[in-house]
């Protein structure tokens, strides 16, 4: 036996490059192609982690994604630390750094291990039974303590600098798993005209083939067959191969999520290169070839480092050239472990004993063992294991004579049978059924166009898998295979031990430290459903989601509750198959691409002119334009004053716009809005109020009639999409007989609002084709013409109470027209204003903002807008609801104005109103402040509020209790400024 010098447990030099890596601060040598686990094992390091609850020392249990024990923190620099990575799947690169977790200060000296010493006090569910007294200790002592014990790996502390990708994909056949069954399926499918995607979570194709050296397929060695197969598949134009890709979840209608790892295996993974990619695949047909996972045996001491699944040892040997020990014992109840024992023996490892739980085995196996000089002890069990950081001996127990025997070993392999991987199958809501022959669940009826093939279908053995794979993909493949027969096994619901069961620690769920005893306790305490057992013991809830534990738990529970395993059933499989990076699920959609940020065509001007922005739905809007060091208050006061006295300019482009066209347009408008539309003349505008069918205010906006059969509707900025939907819904579902069509034109038009006495003077020189004189173009009118030679829809409307125009121009010209107007406006001291000044100006006039002064529970009557509701129309959406008993009842909250007794007090928006400020808490609140501002124009504060029975309270004083003080205010009409509307005609 020759070994690698730096790797004392490396049996065969794979010929790949030697590289170095660091684990817990110590540098080791490994080889390219290693996983962290295989490299550590090659160095003779078995202790890789600590368990969750009892902090017990742990080594690898498996060799792949099923691993519950060997979890490490993978560290590639600031913000790039990933906790809880399985050492068995972490691909080694030169310079890799990883650290063990859930231990302090070090893996060998771990303070938390005292939990293990006192584990008898911490059985499953213990926390329900204690920490209750003294009561005050819970918040201050117990709970903080429990929380401090939480978690496995360290939480991240810095933002992740890496980026992620996401994509959609489609295919005819998606094959999950590139073991023999998956490869055979892919080969067969590659010969059709189907589009095929083949995915495997490993870096290489082959699955179990990579661990089975001795077989041959069609006369070729496994290595050669794999190479040929891969070449054939890579050459086939209709096949896409995705390695390092995990199928994480199976969703409705054959929609499968795949997570592809792109850079974790690279020594120089640049920042900016996508780290992972989420594939969202729709496939006509799905072939699941996910194989099976070996089950541990549940016996006292089965969690010491060095004790692992037989198949894991076989994989470490055949795939990584690494011996998990040189004195390797085997404990099994299934034939398949013999192959592992023989491979190890044949590679030069001493196998002192195969402890066989069954009373008899096939003669072939017995002969093969005898030929190798390996002792088999039948009807026996391991009753104890010795060693601190790694097993150094086991105790063999033969119940028939009650004898025990101590056997030295440096590793112990176990095999309790095999569990077909039904995770994705079950995600798809396909059924499963119990198969007595293999003591496991196998696929039942498919709920989608999907099939399971090979070991995950309960069909074991290489030839079986290959042929099943070929057949399921439509091929008639036959393979000539030489293989070690997979054999069969027997399941032992409990293994013999001379110790009392309460003195045993036989682990079922390794990571969560849940034992056979815990299951019995759960059942004893009345937790008879398997879902209860899971939740009570936490079995299956660790980061491996019970891949190695669920079936054992179910079988133990079935004995405890005295039911058949079918009756006990399995807990639900929940996506994802393996833990999946949040960033990958976010994909490209982070930072600037997290959400659309809509900007108007004038936005860039605002940015250049130092606007302060605010988000309004997904639009970015200028909130105010500070001059130099002005604060918002000063800027808004200045903007308002300029608008009231001369001229303000405002970007109103974000308002939603819908063009309503057709001979029945007015009829449709009549149904959608509370106002009457039939008699609105062409060229005139009207304020429109829209309700939901329940009678509450939904949206509002000015509507212009452009022609008999054409309306230009505006909506609130945030309301545009839902108003469009609301209209389409009624048009298509309730009023399909109407000849009318809707077109969203929000972004067709840039809208420049000019308000102030000089508004007309400003535009007059640049307008063609419109008579701007007050008589020809009155307030609430709309005309089509040109401005600066550009087509415009010019509205004479005002949301400020001043003379106002809204210049609509095709969006592309928005900024140019704005700039030209701004330049020309210099002579009037034109001031750009933002949404904040707009809000103040409209509040001074008592105009509502839907969503601020109304909140989805306000009717037109409540808002004092009965004037906008047609009394004559037979029908409009929401009409009937306005007659409901509680809607017409007294005491509804009504929109009023408020003037604080102290004019300098600006009430807080959202502040609550009471009639009696001296009452005790809870107070009887009669309303709240909806809008509140400092009005520079009026030289005092103003507010709008909804108040119970508010219309009748005009002139009365109400109170606004604030922390430490109570403000008083008088209820008034909400039109604070120019109640007769004379300003509309000034200028």
């Amino acid at each position, binding site marked *: 036996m020759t070994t690698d010098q730096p790797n004392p447990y490396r049996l065969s030099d794979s010929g790949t490059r030697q590289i170095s890596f660091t684990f817990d601060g110590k540098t080791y040598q490994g080889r390219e192609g290693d996983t962290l686990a295989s490299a550590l094992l090659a160095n003779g390091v078995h202790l890789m982690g600590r368990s969750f609850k009892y902090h017990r020392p742990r080594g690898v249990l498996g060799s792949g994604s099923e691993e519950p024990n060997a979890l490490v923190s993978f560290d590639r620099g600031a913000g790039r630390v990933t906790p809880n990575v399985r050492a068995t799947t972490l691909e080694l690169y030169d310079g890799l750094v990883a650290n063990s977790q859930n231990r302090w200060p070090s893996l060998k000296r771990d303070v938390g291990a005292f939990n293990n010493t006192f584990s008898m006090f911490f059985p499953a569910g213990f926390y329900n039974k204690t920490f209750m007294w003294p009561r005050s200790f819970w918040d201050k002592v117990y709970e903080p303590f429990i929380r401090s014990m939480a978690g496995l790996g360290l939480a991240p502390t810095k933002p992740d600098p890496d980026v992620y990708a996401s994509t959609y994909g489609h295919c005819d056949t998606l094959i999950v798993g590139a073991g023999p069954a998956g490869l055979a399926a892919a080969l067969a499918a590659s010969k059709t005209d189907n589009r095929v995607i083949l995915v495997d979570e490993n870096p290489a194709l082959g699955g179990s083939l990579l661990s089975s050296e001795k077989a041959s397929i069609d006369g070729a060695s496994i290595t050669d067959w794999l190479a040929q197969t891969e070449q054939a598949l890579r050459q086939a134009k209709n096949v896409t191969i995705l390695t390092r890709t995990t199928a994480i979840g199976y969703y409705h209608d054959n929609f499968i999520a795949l997570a592809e790892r792109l850079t974790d295996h690279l020594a120089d993974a640049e920042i900016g290169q996508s780290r992972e990619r989420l594939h969202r695949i729709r496939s006509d047909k799905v072939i699941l070839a996910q194989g099976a996972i070996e089950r541990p045996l549940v016996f006292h001491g089965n969690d010491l480092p060095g004790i692992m699944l037989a198949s894991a040892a076989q994989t470490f040997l055949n795939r990584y050239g690494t011996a998990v020990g040189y004195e390797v014992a085997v404990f099994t109840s299934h034939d398949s472990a013999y192959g592992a024992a023989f491979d190890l023996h044949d590679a030069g490892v001493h196998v002192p004993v195969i402890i066989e739980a069954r009373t008899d085995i096939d003669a072939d196996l017995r002969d093969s063992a005898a030929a190798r000089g390996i002792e088999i002890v039948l009807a026996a069990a391991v009753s104890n294991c010795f060693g601190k950081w790694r097993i150094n001996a086991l105790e063999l127990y033969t119940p028939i004579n009650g004898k025990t025997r101590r056997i030295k070993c440096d590793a112990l392999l176990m095999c309790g049978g095999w569990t077909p991987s039904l995770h994705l199958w079950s995600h798809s809501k396909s059924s499963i059924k119990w198969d007595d022959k293999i003591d496991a669940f196998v696929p039942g009826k498919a709920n989608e166009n999907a099939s399971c093939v090979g070991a995950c279908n309960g069909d074991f053995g290489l030839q079986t898998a290959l042929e099943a794979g070929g057949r399921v993909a439509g091929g008639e493949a036959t393979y000539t295979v030489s293989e070690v027969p997979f054999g069969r096994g027997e399941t032992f619901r409990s293994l013999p031990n001379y110790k009392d069961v309460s003195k045993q620690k036989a682990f079922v769920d390794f990571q969560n430290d849940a034992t056979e005893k815990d299951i019995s306790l759960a059942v004893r305490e009345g937790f008879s459903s398997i879902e209860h057992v899971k939740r009570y013991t936490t079995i299956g809830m660790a980061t491996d989601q019970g891949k190695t534990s669920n079936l054992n738990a179910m079988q133990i529970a079935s004995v405890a509750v005295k039911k058949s395993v079918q009756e006990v059933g399995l807990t639900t499989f929940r996506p994802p198959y393996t833990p999946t990076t949040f960033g990958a699920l976010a994909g490209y959609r982070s930072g600037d*691409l997290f959400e659309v940020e809509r900007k108007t065509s004038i936005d860039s001007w605002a940015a250049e002119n130092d606007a302060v922005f605010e988000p309004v739905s997904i639009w970015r809007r200028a909130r105010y334009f500070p001059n130099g060091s002005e604060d918002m208050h000063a800027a808004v006061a200045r903007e308002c004053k300029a608008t009231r006295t001369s001229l303000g300019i405002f970007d109103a482009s974000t308002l939603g716009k819908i063009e309503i066209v057709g001979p029945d347009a007015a009829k449709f408008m009549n149904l959608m809005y509370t106002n009457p539309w039939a008699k609105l003349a062409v060229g005139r505008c009207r304020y429109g109020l829209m309700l939901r069918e329940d009678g509450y205010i939904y949206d509002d906006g000015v509507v212009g009639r452009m022609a008999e059969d054409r309306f230009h509707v505006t909506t609130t900025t945030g309301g545009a999409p839902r108003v469009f939907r609301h209209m389409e819904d009624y048009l298509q579902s309730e009023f399909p007989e109407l000849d009318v069509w809707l077109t969203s034109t929000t972004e067709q038009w840039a809208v420049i609002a000019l308000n102030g006495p000089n508004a007309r003077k400003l535009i007059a020189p640049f307008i063609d084709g419109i008579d701007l004189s007050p008589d020809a173009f009155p307030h609430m009118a709309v005309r089509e013409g040109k401005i600066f030679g550009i087509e415009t829809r010019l509205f004479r409307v005002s949301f400020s109470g001043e003379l106002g125009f809204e210049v609509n121009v095709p*969006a592309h010209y928005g900024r140019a027209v704005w700039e030209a107007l701004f330049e020309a406006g210099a002579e009037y001291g034109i001031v750009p204003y933002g949404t904040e000044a707009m809000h103040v100006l409209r509040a001074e006039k008592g105009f509502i903002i839907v969503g601020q002064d109304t909140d989805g529970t306000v009717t037109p009557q409540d808002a004092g807008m009965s004037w906008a509701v047609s009394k004559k129309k037979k029908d409009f959406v929401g009409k009937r609801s306005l007659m409901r008993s509680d809607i017409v009842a007294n005491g509804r909250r009504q929109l009023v104005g408020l003037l604080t007794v102290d004019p300098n007090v600006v009430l807080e928006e959202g502040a609550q109103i009471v009639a009696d400020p001296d009452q005790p808490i809870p107070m009887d609140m009669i309303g709240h402040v909806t809008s509140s501002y400092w009005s520079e124009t009026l030289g005092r504060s103003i507010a709008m509020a909804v108040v119970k029975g508010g219309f009748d309270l005009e002139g009365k004083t109400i109170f606004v209790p604030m922390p430490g003080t109570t403000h008083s205010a008088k209820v008034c009409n909400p039109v604070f400024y120019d109640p007769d509307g004379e300003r509309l005609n000034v200028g």
Partner: protein
Amino acid sequence: MLVDQGLEIGDTLSDGCLTVLLVSERTRYSLRIKAEDLTAFNLESGLGLPERIGQSSLTEARMQLCLGPDEWLIVTQPDLDKGLGAQLKRLSDSFIFSFTDISHRNIALTVQGSEAVAAINIGCPLDLSPEHFPVGKVTRTVFENAPIMLLRTGEDVFHLECWRSYGPYVTGLFARYAKDIEMS
């Protein structure tokens, strides 16, 4: 045209396999007419609007795209195809239909190259294989958070339209994908 959106693309994003170009100014009309009137309308107008959802009729000067059972988008090159607006206005005397100028509502991108399909599929959930999405097919769909309209004009060429304020988001996604191609 899109200076205001901070978009000044028109350059190749990555090594020829993916090019995303801003389409120059176009005139666009949304045309709505009941399906039962279409035959007569086509006869009278000579427009030759395609009859089924997803179909298009394409010339250099004009694209006529059927987006819904009663909905067409007509996109024209303004310097090659004048007078459509006037023609539609005339037709409104004889037919009940709707047309609305939305020239400025949309922007258009040409997405082309061997990576065009993959690039669009990063955010568009449709199957863009030629069997499912042949040349000439058009539809509204989504590109992650952006509603888009997608038309295939060639094996590796797509005409993509979206509302103008969605432009930077859409091109931003393409730019990220282009970076992925470059770095991989």
